[in-house]
């Protein structure tokens, strides 16, 4: 989703329209979503830059009118660390315990980014975003391929399926200089950091991990990413298995927030070879999600 630079200027009108309302915990409600802004992350002194500089962005580069960082990187193939002159200019920000480190109650982390470069177009991997929990290999790395020159872009990082959300320790941005040419000059403006969650139980992913199964398999492994407030999630999600139009079974299954693999028992259905669908929220067109699977006769037909 690309947000034009003028978007934030409409903010007062939106506010006047009553679409946003604040909650006691600093969370604002916008439509069917609850949003927690993390403007503290846009404080330059909290970031530790190396081979680059980070400052507060000028007024004209404020993301949605909110505090914004300016990351300036002069690509220099001969500077940097002795062993790696073509290196990784980077900046890291340690999160404050406990207020900023537990993201388990949210579905998405978002921020806005605007890029200017001395080159005509960005490379295929212009900037990398890292969540360290507390290390890189226990965290998450996201290539910001969404970046466009001269345009605000909202970066949406779905987090409900990520592990270690209760101990997000550090956020980071870096480039790999090998993706650029020596002498390139890069300016990234990053702001409007926020955590977002749905006010309703919903599925951001339904995937059958065995889209084709042998006849007789007792379970169907289904990967779900469940979003929404815990209270609503706790009510469970309705699923329907169909062959063609015929509903073979409807059931409400318990789920939890985040990513999970549900081993849905199908033994008693005794499914014969053919094509089937699994639908969640069958009666709610807005939230309905459908996945297909096929039952295949085994190669050992007749064998014990």
């Amino acid at each position: 989703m690309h947000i034009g630079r003028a978007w934030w200027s409409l903010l007062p009108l939106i506010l006047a329209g009553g679409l946003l309302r604040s909650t006691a915990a600093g969370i604002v409600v916008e439509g069917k979503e609850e949003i927690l802004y993390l403007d503290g992350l846009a404080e330059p002194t909290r970031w530790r830059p190396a081979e680059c500089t980070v400052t507060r962005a000028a007024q004209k580069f404020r993301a949605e009118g909110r505090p914004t960082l300016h990351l300036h990187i002069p690509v220099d193939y001969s500077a940097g660390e002795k062993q790696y002159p073509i290196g990784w200019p980077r900046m890291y920000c340690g999160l404050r315990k406990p207020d900023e480190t537990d993201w388990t109650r949210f579905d998405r982390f978002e921020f806005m980014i605007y890029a200017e470069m001395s080159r005509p177009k960005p490379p295929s991997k212009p900037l990398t975003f890292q969540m360290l929990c507390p290390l890189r290999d226990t965290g998450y790395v996201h290539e910001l391929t969404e970046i466009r020159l001269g345009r605000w872009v909202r970066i949406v990082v779905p987090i409900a399926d990520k592990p270690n959300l209760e101990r997000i320790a550090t956020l980071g941005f870096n480039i790999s200089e090998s993706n650029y040419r020596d002498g390139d000059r890069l300016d990234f403006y990053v702001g409007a950091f926020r955590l977002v969650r749905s006010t309703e139980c919903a599925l951001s992913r339904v995937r059958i991990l065995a889209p084709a199964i042998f006849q007789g398999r007792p379970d169907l492994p289904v990967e779900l990413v469940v979003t929404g407030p815990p209270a609503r999630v706790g009510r469970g999600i309705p699923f329907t298995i169909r062959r063609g139009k015929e509903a073979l079974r409807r059931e409400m299954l318990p789920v939890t927030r985040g990513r999970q693999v549900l081993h849905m028992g199908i033994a008693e259905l005794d499914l014969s070879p053919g094509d089937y669908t699994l639908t969640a929220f069958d009666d709610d067109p807005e939230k309905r999600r459908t996945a297909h699977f096929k039952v295949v006769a085994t190669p050992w037909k007749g064998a014990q």
Partner: protein
Amino acid sequence: MKHPRNSVVSDRRWPNAPVRGRAFLLAAFVLLRAAAAPGPAAAVLLDFGKNDSPLQKGFARLTPTSVFKPGVRAGWVRPTGLRAEADPIRREGTYSASRGRTEPPPIYLTELSCDRVESDAAAVLRVTLPPGNYRMWVLLGPGGGNRAQVWDAAVDVAGSTLTATLAGPWDSRVRRHAFSNPADQLDIRFDTRSRWAVSALAIASEKAWPAIEKDFIKPAEQAIFLLPPELLAKWKVRPRVKPDPQPQFTDAEKKRGFVLYHRHWSQPIWPTSAPRRSEIDPTLKAFAAPDEYEPLTLSVYPLRPETLERVTVTDLVAAGSGSRVPADQVDVRWVRTMAVRPNYRVVGAYYRAPDVLMPWRGPRTLVPNESLRLWLTLHVGPAVPDDVYRGEIRLTFAGGAATRTPVVFRVAGIKLEKDRSLVYGAYYHHPFNRMFAAPDAFSRQWWRRKAELEHADMAAHGNNTLVLGLGGHSVGGGKWRFDFDRLGQMIDLYRRVGFYQPIICHFPVGSLYRKYMKSSPGSHLRLVKMPPKPFFDELTAMVRDIETERRRRQWPELLYYPIDEPATTEVAVNFMTQVMKAIKRVPGVRTYVTADPANDAFSPMRPYVNVWCCQPFSLARDTVIADMKKRPVEYWCYPNHVAGENDHTPVAGARMTYGFGFWRSGFRALTPWIYQAVIGNPWNYLDGGAMDFFNRTDDDGSPIPVTLWEAYREGIDDGRYLATLDRWIDRARAAGKTDAVREAQADRRLLWEAIPVMPKYKYEVDWTPETFDVFRWLLAQRILKLKAALGQ
């Protein structure tokens, strides 16, 4: 530290221990301590080497001049031709200007392994030893020196022969033996087909052995095959996975002391894995087409110390027809875990990972709560008829327990075909290069055999080419003398195993650069400077000469591969662009580069590159196909993320990369680094500048596969089912069988849409392991239906 000369080990010295140095005192103390319980002279601990080379604490020195005579504990009998060698014990690294980094020593030598006695002839070591039952432990190698030397030892002791053959300077073997000694002395005869080298030997009575094992042998093995203690103390164990919870075992299982369980072969079984209840007491099921290989695994989970004595597989028999898949077509192996690094060059951390498929050669001691996975590969003969076959895997344990696990195996009546336009290759350190430099006939023959067996193995796994190199040197006047005959021998072998795709060929561009610039361009061109124009003219002339000779010898196409993974610096890219241009001045030749085509820095090179080989499937299918249609360019992939250099266990990712994912990518080739990476000791992945990985080598030169290599074959086989289906769809369409064609295409589309599209299939493959097999069977079933529709 210098040590006293004590080349003769005398019984008489031990009780009174004449003071001739601290090391000797320590040795005497240890020997006395070891001998204390069972009686005097219960242990002999010998460290072979030079008079002045380091001596292992607790061991006695034995040099080529340690001659046996009455009253001496151990010495050579009429020694001739014995030599001692020693290498320095180093822990610090050496700076490599070309690579721009400090490299650790290739292996971490210890006082025990740094020195040795060696010979190319037989020699007898005589040990004074009272009659009794003994255990022996001997460390053969490392031999140091010539990289092309193959060390070979046959150690005759008490009527048995212990053998070991090891290649190169850094490999070593431990051999153990239990024996009875009826006399007052024991002769140990060392013989060889090339050269033998012995670094250490320990003999102790059965009673004394546990203490010797604990105090000397285990620490010695740990220092050689893991890390020396001072380094090990600094390295952290960083497990990759959390331990599995144990299931509730039944009383019968507890009484028996183990359970058998099955998990799909593409799911690694870690040292901390435990069976799930649903996996216990399995019936193993699989299917294959004639002339196909198929893996089957069975794991033993011991609840107490056990010894698995025997593994037997019966013939698989079809009930109706009596047709058979004979037991001798089943290769039985066990999965060896290796201590591995979290990444290629990581120092300071390791974990244990299931990796190498060792040949099953008899009893294995099982550690409680640690699975032993058996890995069986069935080869279905070309004429085995379509049927369901049944048989058993029988295990016998030392305590007398025996099990029978049923196997049900379907052979599908399909002649598998292959898309022969696809390229499956591998980077390869060709053993012929060692063969050419080998110092003796046995070593030469061993390297030749290694190459032949590896080529046969590559072909049996579905490969159809490999990366080769052409050596050469400048003879002045702009002329070069190339080793065409050597490359010719390699190409002969390539042809003998049926390879047919173009050969990626590197040639001496680095030497040419040094000739003009008087320096190295550095690893990946990190030090390159732009050479003068005559450099490029001479490069063109080189390629012209090579091409002329290639045509004269009727060789397959060579893809010109001047530099590996060039850097993205402006000077490196400009250099590469000029190099590519110079190569392409020769009509008809194609260039090959290992670089990311998505990286803009390489854009000046683009018009001169015919084959882009990049690590992941880094461009989208549509982009790749459109560009290949527009220009004479191909996109290849070297999927190192599933080749073991940073992880030995992404097995399902490897299968997807080689099979359905490859099909979906639009890329034309897979050529990973590398068929075998040996850095230091091939059985120690923690020594050397980088981790060892991928296939290992048995003493006879035959390849020992790793799980990832088997996954490659399974991926390629997935592709063969696809190619076969496509051919049958064509045949059915030509015969007007439109309904059958439509149904087959629907299944094909279902598979296509189910395949996740990713640049790298490594951990992110979220299909269940069985899903690959179900889709493969869906294709097989459809092929059988199309055949039936066509009356076949």
